[in-house]
């Protein structure tokens, strides 16, 4: 029997290694896998490269992981936003490397990694400083920049419902980056607001097929820790 459901956050993140590239779902706070990030702090992995749209808010979730000194580099589109206090302090202090990527290029580079596409051309960024050092090529009279796939070792995502095969649905704008990140990662770990019996999700309406999900933990697993510290 395939059973991707584990019974604790600790088990879910148990084998994330030092130096891993970790994609973190969420757009702002919506869809952010906060509890998985807190479990990752407990777990202790360090020297991480994090892929996320934002660089954390306040002192919980991604910001807490950052504040704990576990993140070496962050790849994101919009690091500074209301409340990104930890990022700003650590970046200014030179304790954090930043790779700034246009938001659509970020999503597309993740999908490309999932699709076996090592590189693709895009008009986004042409003629800007974010294209510096990248190959620019004229195709049919228009210039494009070559962007590389962005694979991850692990993706941490928040889903609405999930079954033991890892099939998942999302709730409204909670979907955002979770889908391309799950495609891009060798191991996707999902925290689910509800665990549902195999066969109860409509095959026409599974958002994220189980092939992209490797481990599932229920939101209310016993070691849930939504606030940190």
């Amino acid at each position, binding site marked *: 029997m395939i059973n991707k459901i584990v019974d604790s956050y600790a088990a879910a993140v148990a084998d994330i290694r030092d130096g891993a590239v970790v994609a973190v779902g969420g757009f702002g706070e919506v869809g952010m896998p906060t509890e998985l990030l807190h479990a990752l702090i407990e777990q202790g992995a360090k020297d991480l490269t994090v892929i996320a749209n934002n660089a954390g808010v306040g002192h919980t979730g991604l910001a807490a992981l950052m504040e704990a000194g576990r993140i070496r580099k962050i790849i994101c589109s919009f690091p500074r936003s209301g409340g990104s206090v930890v990022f700003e302090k650590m970046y200014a202090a030179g304790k954090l490397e930043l790779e700034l990527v246009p938001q*659509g290029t970020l999503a597309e580079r993740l999908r490309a990694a999932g699709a076996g596409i090592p590189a693709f051309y895009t*008009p986004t960024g042409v003629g800007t400083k974010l294209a510096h050092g990248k190959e620019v090529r004229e195709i049919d009279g228009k210039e494009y920049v070559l962007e590389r796939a962005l694979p991850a070792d692990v993706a941490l995502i928040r889903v609405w419902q999930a079954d033991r095969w890892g099939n998942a649905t999302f709730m409204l704008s909670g979907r*955002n980056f979770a889908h391309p990140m799950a495609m891009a990662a060798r191991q996707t770990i999902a925290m689910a607001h509800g665990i549902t019996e195999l066969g109860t999700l409509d095959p026409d309406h599974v958002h994220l097929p189980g092939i992209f999900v490797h481990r599932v933990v229920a939101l209310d697993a016993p070691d849930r820790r939504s606030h940190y510290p």
Partner: protein
Amino acid sequence: MTEPQPLSRKAMAARAAADIPEGWYVNLGIGMPTMVADYVPLEREVVFHSENGILGVGPAPAKGQENPWLVNAGKQPITLRPGASICHHADSFLMIRGGHLDLCILGAFEVAMNGDLANWATSENDTAPGVGGAMDLAAGAKRIWVLMEHTTKDGRPKLVRSCGYPLTAPRVVKRVYTNLAVLDVAGEGFVVREILDGLSFESLQARTDAPLSRAPDLRTLAAH
């Protein structure tokens, strides 16, 4: 002669809103552009897109009716209107980058007369600017309109011969709505289509770095 009162932010948003025809798919940038939606009546069906995978953004929810799972690109609570749909981020930016949006209205630091747009970083040395979806929108939407004050707070022109700030995308802006005028990008300058009632063309030129010319049917800019 006293200068006339520039348009308020609300009036600017309303002026841009008046030009959006029914049926267009439109993305509104964070800040003042987001206000444009408030001035498109629901019965004129315009489909608003939000980068985080939403097509068919509706009006802001009533206080206390916010759904925590439903925010726009500015992370503000929103509603969906009938006909709305949700997609993931790669598909959402496919809509943007694939030229499926009829229009994107953005704010800007500077717009150059050749259509160059600078709206993401204020200097080459900015410590940690965020680019967000600005470059994708600027490069991908069918039309880019800019909604911004005509000058900076300290009076420096924002409609320039050549951008001093880092570019978001070259040669993409088609039209600019300011608190003083509506202008089209014309390559060698801007064409003034509408000018604030009571403002002289020379006064407008004095607040603009790039050369201006009059549209054949130059009209008065009025709140809508």
